[in-house]
């Protein structure tokens, strides 16, 4: 310990001291303001046209990286052909605002002329159409066109494992430049489009100087940061992250995976398309070589370097890589040449490090993945802090009276089972995992499913929750047939579950996990999330309140850890969190797959009490459990499964008296001894 009296202050510390006194929020704002001012005055200070041009190009790639970050960083979909969407946008604008196409003039074009999309060109015996689509209209249109192609090629693959998307996008990224090269009437082939019209704003033409493009690029970056951040902290962004963390669990929590993956893919493609118009307007030319695989890799490197899902990290990485390419490698080569001359080394005099940029990209990818997967600036998962009032206003365990009953007692027709399974059959290859099982779970009861390992208990749960489709049989919830529905629709109907081996969204916070649990009964879409509509804000507030109510069931176990990342929790707390997440979906019936597995006796008793209190709150519970003391304590009814068949059903005493049950657990000899 250094006592205050003897403490020496370095100049750096002295300068940093006032900064440290600020709260972390203020620090963030200060840095942001400084960066924004720096970005705005940069072209005024550095009057070198070459530098500004490089900076303007860097903005284009930063925007691309932000767009890809939504796809790769948030939704976890590896897109290796991102440059293809960039190309589509670029060529869309290039073709609609240049002389590339110039059909004969006819009356067909008159309405378009009136709209200002084309001009009538008559000179030197020519009578043709000149496409003059405004840049500001082309940009959103190009985004739509690129998004359309994204959906077209994403749809077939997004149903499959994520890996397939990587290869299909790689192929797509390969063929788009080939099509461009081989379709000269539209694209002028390998020679490229020329004379693309520069954007103009209020009569001011952007021309060929770099500054206006630089400012436009900065504005685009700001817009994308805004959109990405808002999406990330919304129902949509959380669903994307849930898919990234654990696709199966996301489905089980009500996330329509195909739809959300397509959305991420289309938004990413749209941003690339819009950037394409910007880039081609700046260069006023487009050739197929500008959109090859190395471009896609470079953008991926930016995301990996900056941190997947990290908005600011990605921008920082784009700037770093641009500095590396435009300045640092050249300077370094220059220094090496000088050094080479000094020591008389020929090789050093000729070295050109700018050529090794792609090698450096490869090395960055590998090193980041091996040693710093979270990137330079890890994606912060800051969920809005709750006020002390919010946290303390809720009752703690024991006095809680949250009504989890989502079915009003009057709504139930007498004699209708909460869950009914009839003649359910599932085989895997030659093995019958579930064989003609019938069961009923009455509303408001706790039913336990027991049986030796491999007896088909988890398979039965998987069939009920839509993870696997049964070969035969019928599953109904409150009399309604739900057989064969996909898992996200089953949650919506009111069956929630937990998993035997815990499937939390490990890199999301406790609160976020529970918010994802509420996915199926919330509505906010991407537009609402970005615009912060009234309905969205209200919904967000409501889901947060509900999350706190749910967490209060576990008293002070999870409540103080709201903003902790799930993987940092203790094992028992992770088990509790998974139950809380399932409860958040407002289920009618809760399926628990070995909820107390791995818990010590005290924790087991605590959880058993909590499960019991869930029933008190009106919930129906169906659980798989191995600990017979828990089962005997909780269950109104016990079902025993062996080799996929139901061999016994009844109260604890009835079931334990059955010789078949003893036999299943202990073996024939012991049971008959």
């Amino acid at each position: 310990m250094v006592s205050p009296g003897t403490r020496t202050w370095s100049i750096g510390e002295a300068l940093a001291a006032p900064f440290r006194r600020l709260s972390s929020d203020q620090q963030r704002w200060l840095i942001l303001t400084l960066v924004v001012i720096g970005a705005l005055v940069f072209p005024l200070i550095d009057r070198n046209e070459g530098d500004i041009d490089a900076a303007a190009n860097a903005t284009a790639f930063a925007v691309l990286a932000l767009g890809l970050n939504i796809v790769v960083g948030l939704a976890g979909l590896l897109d290796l052909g991102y440059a293809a969407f960039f190309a589509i946008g670029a060529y869309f604008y290039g073709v609609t605002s240049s002389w590339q196409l110039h059909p004969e003039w006819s009356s067909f074009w008159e309405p378009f002329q009136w709209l200002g999309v084309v001009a009538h060109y008559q000179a030197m015996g020519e009578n043709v159409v000149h496409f003059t689509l405004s840049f500001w209209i082309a940009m959103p249109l190009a985004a739509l066109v690129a998004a359309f192609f994204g959906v077209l090629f994403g749809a077939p693959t997004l149903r499959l494992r994520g890996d397939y998307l990587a290869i299909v996008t790689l192929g797509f990224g390969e063929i788009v430049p080939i099509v461009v090269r081989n379709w000269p009437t539209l694209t002028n082939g390998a020679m490229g489009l020329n004379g693309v019209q520069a954007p103009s704003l209020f009569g001011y033409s952007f021309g060929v100087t770099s500054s206006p493009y630089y400012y436009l690029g900065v504005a685009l970056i700001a817009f994308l940061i805004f959109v990405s951040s808002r999406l990330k902290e919304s129902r949509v962004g959380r669903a994307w992250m849930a898919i990234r963390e654990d696709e199966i669990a996301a489905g089980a929590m009500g996330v329509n995976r195909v739809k959300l993956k397509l959305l991420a893919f289309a938004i990413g493609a749209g941003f690339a398309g819009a950037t394409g118009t910007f880039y081609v307007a700046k260069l006023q030319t487009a050739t197929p070589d500008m959109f090859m695989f190395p471009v896609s890799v470079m953008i991926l490197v930016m995301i990996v370097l900056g941190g997947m899902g990290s908005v600011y990290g990605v921008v920082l990485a784009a700037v770093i890589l641009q500095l590396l390419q435009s300045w640092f490698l050249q300077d370094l080569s220059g220094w090496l040449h000088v050094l080479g001359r000094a020591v008389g080394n020929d090789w050093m005099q000729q070295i050109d490090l700018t050529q090794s940029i792609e090698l450096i990209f490869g090395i960055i990818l590998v090193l980041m993945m091996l040693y710093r997967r979270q990137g330079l600036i890890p994606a912060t998962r800051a969920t809005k802090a709750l006020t002390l009032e919010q946290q303390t206003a809720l009752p703690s365990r024991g006095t809680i009276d949250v009504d989890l009953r989502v079915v009003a007692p009057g709504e139930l027709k007498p004699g209708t089972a909460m869950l009914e399974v009839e003649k359910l059959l599932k085989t895997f290859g030659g093995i019958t995992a579930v064989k003609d099982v019938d069961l009923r779970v009455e509303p408001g009861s706790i039913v336990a499913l027991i049986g030796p390992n491999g007896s088909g208990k988890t398979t039965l749960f998987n069939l009920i929750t839509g993870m696997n489709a049964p070969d035969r049989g019928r599953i109904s919830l409150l009399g309604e047939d739900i057989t064969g529905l996909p898992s996200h629709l089953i949650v919506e109907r009111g069956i929630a579950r937990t998993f035997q081996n815990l499937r939390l969204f490990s890199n999301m916070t406790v609160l976020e996990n529970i918010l994802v649990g509420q996915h199926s009964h919330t509505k906010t879409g991407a537009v609402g999330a970005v615009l912060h509509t009234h309905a969205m804000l209200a919904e967000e507030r409501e889901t947060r309140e509900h999350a706190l109510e749910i967490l209060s069931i576990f008293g002070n176990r999870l409540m103080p850890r709201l903003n902790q990342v799930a993987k940092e929790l203790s094992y028992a707390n992770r088990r509790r969190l998974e139950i809380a997440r399932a409860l958040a979906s407002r289920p009618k019936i809760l399926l628990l797959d070995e909820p107390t597995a791995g818990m010590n006796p005290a924790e087991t008793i605590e959880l058993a009490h909590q499960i019991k209190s869930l029933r008190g709150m009106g919930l129906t519970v169906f659980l798989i459990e191995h600990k017979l003391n828990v089962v005997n304590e909780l269950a109104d009814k016990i079902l025993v499964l062996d080799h996929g068949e139901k061999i016994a059903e009844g109260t604890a005493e009835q079931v334990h008296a059955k010789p078949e049950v003893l036999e299943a657990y202990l073996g024939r000899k012991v049971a008959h001894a």
Partner: protein
Amino acid sequence: MTFQDVLIQQVINGVSLGAIYSLLALGFTMVYGIIELINFAHFNVFMVGSFIAMYILQALGLNGQNVILTGFSLVGVLVVALVGTMLLSGALGVLIERTALRPLRGVPGTAAMITTIGVSYILFNIVLLTIGADAFNFPNPMPTVRWGEAGVVLQLREVLVWVVAFLLMACLNYFVRRTKMGKAMQATAQDQEAARMMGVEVDRVVMITFFLGSALAGAAGLIFGLYYNYTNFAIGYTAGLRAFTAAVLGGIGNIPGAMLGGIIIGLIESLGGQLLEVRWTDVIIFSVLVLVLVFRPTGLFGRATAARS
């Protein structure tokens, strides 16, 4: 030449191309079968393999097409080149697995796949920066032997490609089905955890899978050079993408499927190039990939894991 002759000729060409793709597809499918990873490094292990083969042949005193060998000396040279290339390529595969991929085993998400892209890029650029972007004349000691007349011609190089590919696939099949290590591989592919509990050393199985896959890629690199008489730093990308399509077509994870898928892709390439224009070949093959994924994601010869989402 009649149309029929052209067709037969293109089938001969297609099967030869297909044999190269099959060898390459096997590496994709084996690695995917064991650790569910698309190994993009495989693209350029193939490319590096063809350079290794070139240097071995040059070291054996062969340069360009000037030295023509026959009989035992020809077979001997080819066997030495094949074995040497396969050993070195296989070692490269093991090196990649040990240094870049093993530390990421069990890390969820896209990390391992991104690493293989990085490794692929590193290999590609090292070759580009050190050896250069030229197309290199690949040594070929085979005499020009042709069977057939003006119409359909079968050359020795094609027969060689078929024989080498067939022998390697037969060996692989024997290895996977009959040997203890092969059975350990099958077990690991089905259920890694269960295999581990039964005493299978999973790390060793993965290492051997990479060795075999990369060795086959090296062999493909050698016969690519012998077939086309050139090699270049950029051959990995196109061939790799086609071979991957072949693996998907055959049902990824399915070894005989990859062999057949390769032949089918080779035929599509040669016949498609004949019927349409060569410059659209990549578009045709990409369309095949997308169509297979839409209509039969488990591939023609299926394996359930492919469709799991």
